[in-house]
């Protein structure tokens, strides 16, 4: 059975202009190593299709076992002009939990 990121981490996301920022937080130190293997900009872009139009960055935070995912041009123009219901991307980040875990 393929595990998903939802099995090993938690998420919080939000907006900065047309940028969606999401923090994935590993449940355990072991999960952090797995999380690092399982998330990268290509996977994030592939997941969201044309909803994420710009560059994606993934920043590791070894000190708190988290990865910050920054998705540019990802909110349909930003909170004040987007046609999406989730104007500030609070829900958008949760889709990252669908990414499959890359086992060691």
């Amino acid at each position, binding site marked *: 059975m393929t595990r998903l990121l939802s099995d090993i981490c*938690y*998420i*919080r*996301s*939000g*907006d*900065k*202009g*047309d*940028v969606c*920022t*999401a*923090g*994935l*937080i590993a449940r355990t130190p072991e999960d952090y190593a797995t999380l690092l293997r399982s998330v990268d900009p290509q996977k994030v872009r592939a*997941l*969201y*299709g*044309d*909803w994420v139009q710009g560059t994606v*960055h993934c*920043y590791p*935070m*070894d*000190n*708190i*076992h*988290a990865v*910050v995912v*920054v998705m*540019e*041009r990802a909110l*349909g*123009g*930003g*909170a*004040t*002009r987007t*046609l*999406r*219901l*989730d*104007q*500030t991307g*609070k*829900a*958008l980040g*949760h*889709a990252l939990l*669908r990414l499959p875990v890359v086992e060691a």
Partner: protein
Amino acid sequence: MKDTIRLGAGSGFWGDGMDPAVELLREGELDYLCFDFLAELTMALLQRQKSKNPQLGYVPDAVQTMKTLMPMARERGTRLVSNGGGVNPRAAAQAIVTDARALGLGGTRVALVEGDDLLDKIDAMVAAGVPMTNMDTGSSDFASIRSRVVSANAYTDSTGLVEGLAGGAHIVVAGRVSDNAVYVGPLVHEFGWQRDAAHVDRIASAITLGHIVECASACTGGMSSRFADMPHMGRVGFPIVEFHRDGSAVVTKVPGSGGKVDAFTIKEHLVYEIGDPRRYLMPDGIADFTSLALREDGTDRVHVSGVRGQAAPEQLKLVIGYQDGWIGESLCFFPWPHAYARAVKARETMLERFERLGLKADQIHFDFVGINTLHGPGAPLPEGAALDNLNEVGLRCAVRTRTAEEADKVRRAATHLWIMGPGGTSFGTPMKARPVVSLWPTLIPREFVRQTVEILEA
């Protein structure tokens, strides 16, 4: 001089609950109660209000909250600091002074911090060669929106807040100071920090702690992925920072209040709405969130230490708002059986209506509510019988247009479905078209920003 300053977070946004702030003030033994009321979306809304009435444009809650809290705050010696002035801090400060007089709190000193509003300086900046490049899109064609600009507010640092506090203010009200400046300002004032190399890490720590608590209950269990484990979130406690002279701090909350403070709730907020965590850029300085250590220090107490930073950036963020057409929106719901198929057919019908109505749109967006509204292409469709047997599906349509008349065609097309569309459809009240203020974030040299402070006395 105190070695530890206690700051409470009184609000995380315009619309936040006020009862946790009252509890904090009553039981938190606070030196300062700090309020962040602003968001980019908020600034655009406030600008619209001010354009209708020049006396408006501040966050109404900011004035109402001060009115409620100031008698107890004066009694306890807690100072109240907020950025609730929005796009009209002067009107907010005047309203607070009026309230103080009405409450019999003569002598109340209200510091008014202005200087973030650069609407009148835009042409001077352009003439001086500031490129005004859009940070989100990379576009440098600022001329294309110049005639539609309605606001321009710089994210300012805590300098004005510090000056107001040094001037003996009981209440400080500012416009667009950065969210965490309302925490940094009191700490710079209390500890007498200079903006030099020796204090860079301590200011970075203040910025970090400000970031952790600036959304109030968002670090005490609100929005938590472990929300199911959070006790009594309906009476959640807002956070308290016990900030030590050496730059370390403890985040806690009032004993007996709902929610939790633990290493996880702090981590959740550390990663919220940031860019590169090694360089959390604020007008007061740059904090490295990868340098800090968290330690649980008893129930509902988390110790934060080790924050390193760099000096404040040479440029400040300026968010320019401009009129950018209209949005029309509609929503309707379809019941089992074959709810999804009905929604698909209704979408086809609406597109035909748009054609017949001659809709001119920049963008047309449809969602199937219950299926892909939140994650779009990231959400796979249910398959086969599961898709055919959904209890209900909604169809949402949102359209961006140049004029209000065009946007209104969406409401009309959706209304036509009342009897032109599938049977069994449920409609709420039709939604009014709304004007769009788009944002053009850019970077400008600091020297264009001059904060001014005035102390009004009740």
